[in-house]
């Protein structure tokens, strides 16, 4: 851990801890492997930014849209490649109706069937569920693999950034909106948000628009919460791990180090196992709630 600035001397400083959890433009690697422990990511857009955008306008405000490749972007691509590799492999094995052979194929297939039979079909309904299966399958495994990559040393969890989870939640929101509008009609979907009530006309004029606003806000909030839930779970888990391991560094100049280090390693190992559970659990919850929201949109009452 380099200590160029003042607060970096303190391993338990929030900025230091968050540095291990949040996105970056470099991978943290052992000092023996990489210079200063950092492997900077190749920036393909850098010449374009430097020579075109900054030439044209020296005051070009780069943030937040700065065209820089970050660690999480790379890891998302890795997750996508893993996903494509695994499932095209599985598709080749079982597309002709033969049973899956091998541990990996059976494991992947049982997870797919679980999402189909225990998540999609109960939440959306037998006849509509299969249309949304590709989305739900991709969502589950994309989130799961991003979560699991977070447990790999020196990598990170792409689902630990709001940019990722919010986008994924908005994907669900988009599917919910299009599915609902396709099923209920453009106006019918928005009308179906307001539950049917027998109100006197005068009361209805005031109440129904307010209820409509509350329902629309609720629709938005539940999708934003979808994003925040996943983000919070991933960040919190990794942060606790970072804190536990930072205790070792913090006690390195003290005799307590002899007790703190083993306890911290044991605790971090146990929490990593818990994180493994959380990785699956959060992927499942995200997918399950997505399916539930889709089901609610196409069967409003």
């Amino acid at each position, binding site marked *: 851990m380099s200590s160029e600035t003042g607060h970096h001397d*303190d391993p*338990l*400083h*929030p*900025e230091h*801890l*968050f540095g291990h*959890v*949040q*996105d970056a433009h470099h991978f943290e690697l052992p000092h023996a492997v990489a210079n200063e422990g950092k492997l900077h990511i190749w920036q393909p857009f850098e010449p374009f930014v430097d020579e075109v955008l900054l030439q044209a306008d020296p005051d070009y405000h780069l943030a*937040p849209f*700065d065209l*820089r490749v*970050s660690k*999480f*972007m790379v890891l*998302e*691509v890795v997750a*996508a490649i893993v*996903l*494509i590799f695994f*499932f*095209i492999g*599985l*598709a*080749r094995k*079982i*597309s*002709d*109706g*033969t*049973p899956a052979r091998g541990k990996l194929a059976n494991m992947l*297939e049982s997870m*797919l*069937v679980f999402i*189909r039979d225990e998540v999609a079909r109960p939440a959306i309904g037998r006849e509509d569920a*299969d249309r949304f*299966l*590709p989305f739900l*399958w*991709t969502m589950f495994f*994309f989130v799961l693999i991003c979560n699991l990559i977070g447990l790999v040393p020196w990598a990170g969890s*792409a689902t630990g*950034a*709001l*940019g*990722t989870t*919010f*986008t*994924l939640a908005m*994907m669900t929101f988009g599917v919910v909106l299009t599915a609902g509008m396709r099923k209920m009609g453009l106006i019918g979907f928005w009308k179906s948000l307001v539950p049917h009530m027998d109100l006197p006309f005068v009361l209805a004029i005031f109440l129904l628009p307010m209820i409509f606003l509350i329902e629309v806000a609720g629709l938005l909030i539940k999708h934003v919460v979808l994003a*925040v839930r996943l*983000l*919070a779970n991933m*960040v*919190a888990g990794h*942060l606790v791990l970072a*804190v536990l391991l930072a*205790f070792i560094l*913090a006690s390195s100049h003290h005799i307590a180090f002899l007790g703190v280090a083993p306890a911290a390693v044991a605790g971090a190992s146990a929490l990593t196992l818990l994180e493994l559970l959380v990785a699956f659990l959060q992927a499942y919850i995200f997918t399950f709630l997505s399916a539930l929201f889709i089901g609610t949109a196409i069967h409003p009452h």
Partner: protein
Amino acid sequence: MIHCAYRCVLAGLCLGLPSAAIAAGGAGPDPLLFDVDLAICTAIVFLLTLLILRKFAWGPISAGLEKREQSIADNIATAENAAEEARKLTAHYEEKLAGAADEVRAILDEARRDAEHTGQQIVEKAQAKAAEESQRLLREVEQAKQSALREISDRSADLAISLAGKIVAKELKTEDHAAMIRNDLSKFSEAKPSDN
């Protein structure tokens, strides 16, 4: 230091409230930082993955699973049909077996009846033969009797003729005549057929 760690854990637990995290870290890190580039990248990567997998993985996998489920359902239906068929066949054969026992009993009964009948016939035949035999014997006796009687009558005629000749040969007197008849008659009575 411990206080600081506590604040960090607190910040981690209060991630839903960005203000709390910022307060804990001062002007430090914001876990709710929204990186537009990352969001765009996520959208592109996710949608591309979805499209690629939909075409090359989810479609074939769904079809494969469906096909397998169908074939399993078919197999179960076939097996059920086969079981039903086997049950029917068993019932049929059991019926046939029961029929065969009845048949055996019938055959045995018939055989017994035949045997009894044959025995009866043999007895009847024997009785008939015996009766016939006795009839034949009776007839023979009758014939013998008839022939004996015929012989007697022939001999008596002969005697009569010889007697007449004697009478003719001697000139008979009345007393001689009577004596002669008496004589012959005694001879006649000596030759009675009942003494045979």
